[in-house]
């Protein structure tokens, strides 16, 4: 497939991102015309008819979705690159299973009912704990650290999933709540979550985008990266910690949403080639915009109740991905 230049594709992604956000603000039970949205965003009118819908209901949710989409996509690019493994995704390090355990405990112990912040807090705690655990196990095991980290993450994921299943099994009444959380949703979005993402996730994403260049030589081979002045061990750990942080935050606020972190990076690489700075910056906007669209569909379909967004991300995204894959010969050997 003919590659599109980096700057060009980044520009396309940015336009896609901005349009996705503005159009999504207009969609919902109350339709809001395009230019009314633009006007309200730049000149907020507190007494206007759409003010509360836009600022209190839709914008926090849409912004959260975009930040989570961007975080997961960037995290996916980084994990695939530093582990040189196409099957890596933001959850590969066990982060998601730790978060799921935290969230399940919060729901089942009734903490969520006491204070809504317990759930994201415990989920984030679970994510962080698991990430550190995986890093420690990988550090102390012998053999190639690269594979060990993946295997340790996989092992812990399965272990924690078993605990989550056990807890769900024993607490039937909360089953649906836990299950719904595990499938991922932005229905609990609020401005505080957006602020936390802006304060912690956005700087981490910016650092990853800048440092992303160092992943290029790592993808060719450790020896090459070393020869080009990169301390592979140190920089792999830094990448690992930063992308785990943004994954942990994302999972805490939205549950476990598949597809974006695994597939968006591949789609971008097929289109632009593997240059990591380009892939990361494009993925920020493509992942963010895509998540916004998926969430808008999830909240507008309203079949019985709101659909989990993870279902939408995969149902639409996978056919696109499979199509691109057939167009590209031997993109990842």
């Amino acid at each position: 497939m003919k590659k599109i230049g980096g700057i060009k594709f980044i520009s396309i992604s940015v336009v896609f991102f901005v349009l996705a956000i503005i159009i999504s603000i207009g969609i919902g039970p109350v339709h809001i015309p395009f230019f009314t949205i633009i006007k309200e965003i730049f000149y907020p009118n507190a007494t206007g008819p759409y003010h509360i819908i836009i600022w209190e209901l839709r914008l926090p949710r849409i912004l959260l979705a975009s930040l989570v989409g961007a975080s997961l996509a960037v995290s996916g690019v980084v994990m695939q690159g530093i582990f040189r493994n196409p099957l890596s995704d933001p959850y590969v390090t066990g982060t998601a299973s730790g978060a799921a355990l935290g969230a399940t405990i919060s729901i089942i112990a009734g903490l969520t009912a006491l204070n809504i912040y317990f759930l994201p807090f415990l989920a984030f705690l679970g994510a962080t704990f698991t990430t550190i655990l995986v890093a420690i196990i990988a550090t102390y095991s012998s053999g190639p650290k690269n594979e060990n980290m993946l295997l340790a993450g996989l092992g812990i994921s399965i272990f924690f999933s078993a605990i989550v299943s056990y807890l769900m099994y024993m607490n039937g009444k909360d089953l649906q709540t836990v299950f719904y959380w595990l499938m991922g949703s932005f229905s609990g979005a609020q401005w505080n979550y957006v602020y936390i993402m802006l304060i912690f996730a956005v700087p981490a994403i910016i650092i990853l985008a800048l440092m992303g260049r160092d992943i290029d030589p790592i993808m060719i081979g450790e020896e090459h990266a070393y020869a080009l002045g990169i301390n592979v061990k140190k920089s792999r750990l830094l990448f690992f910690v930063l992308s785990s942080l943004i994954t942990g935050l994302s999972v805490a606020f939205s549950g476990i949403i598949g597809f974006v972190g695994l597939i968006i990076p591949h789609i971008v690489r097929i289109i632009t080639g593997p240059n990591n700075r380009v892939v990361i910056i494009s993925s920020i906007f493509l992942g963010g915009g895509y998540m916004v669209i998926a969430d808008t569909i999830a909240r507008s379909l309203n079949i019985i109740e709101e659909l989990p967004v993870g279902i939408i991300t995969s149902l639409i995204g996978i056919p696109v991905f499979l199509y691109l894959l057939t167009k590209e010969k031997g993109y990842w050997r």
Partner: protein
Amino acid sequence: MIDIKNLTFSYGDKKILKGISLNVENSEILGILGPNGSGKTTLINVMDGYLKKETGDILIKGKKIEKYSRKELARIMGVVPQDMIPAFDFTVYEIVAMGRYPHLGIIDTISDNDERLIFDALKKTGTYELKDKSIREISGGERQRVFIARAIAQDPDIILLDEPTSNLDIRYQIEILEIIEKMREVGKTIVMSMHDVNLAIRYCTKLALISDGKIYAIGEPDIVINEESIQNVYGIKGKIIRNGGNKIAYILPEKFNGL
């Protein structure tokens, strides 16, 4: 330029380098020769710090290697690892551009000066025409030249190469070695491990014969290579053919009747 004293290295319990000492002067080409498994590649990997030495000292420009940061070292020493096909479709230009990474700060992008050095390296190695092709769709000889171009773009004083001519047919071998010779002419110091004794004699200004993790002999090719050293290091009889002067032209291995 490079001073190595009593260098040792082991993989687990297996001693690979057993006390290597050598030095390389400014604008020399040191060829490291020795049979398979003698420690050539390990020596290159330890010299650039990729593998951590056990004991001994490596001095680069009079300073111990461990006193350099990774990035500082990459600015004075470029490495061309053994040939392999990368798993990703980086373009030739992108690969060579990576040579500039050690010179860039975290927010820097490729500057006009970087771009000039990249194009310069592409032209010097005859890979300019390939610059938009994927590194995976070019031939082995072309790929090797691209990785050498990257080391040139890195603009170091020293270039280490691990078997730069292996797996290449004779024409590519000569092309690569002529590029390396030109590097020496502009003042670079070169260390390369090699398989082919005859090519090493022709292009290296100095040879180190390694046998079982130790230096058997080091010095000018004419002094190091003789019937006895070939017999002792490689375990074969070789006839040395000299041309008009007294320079060695060729080693002609005798038919091996040991089997």
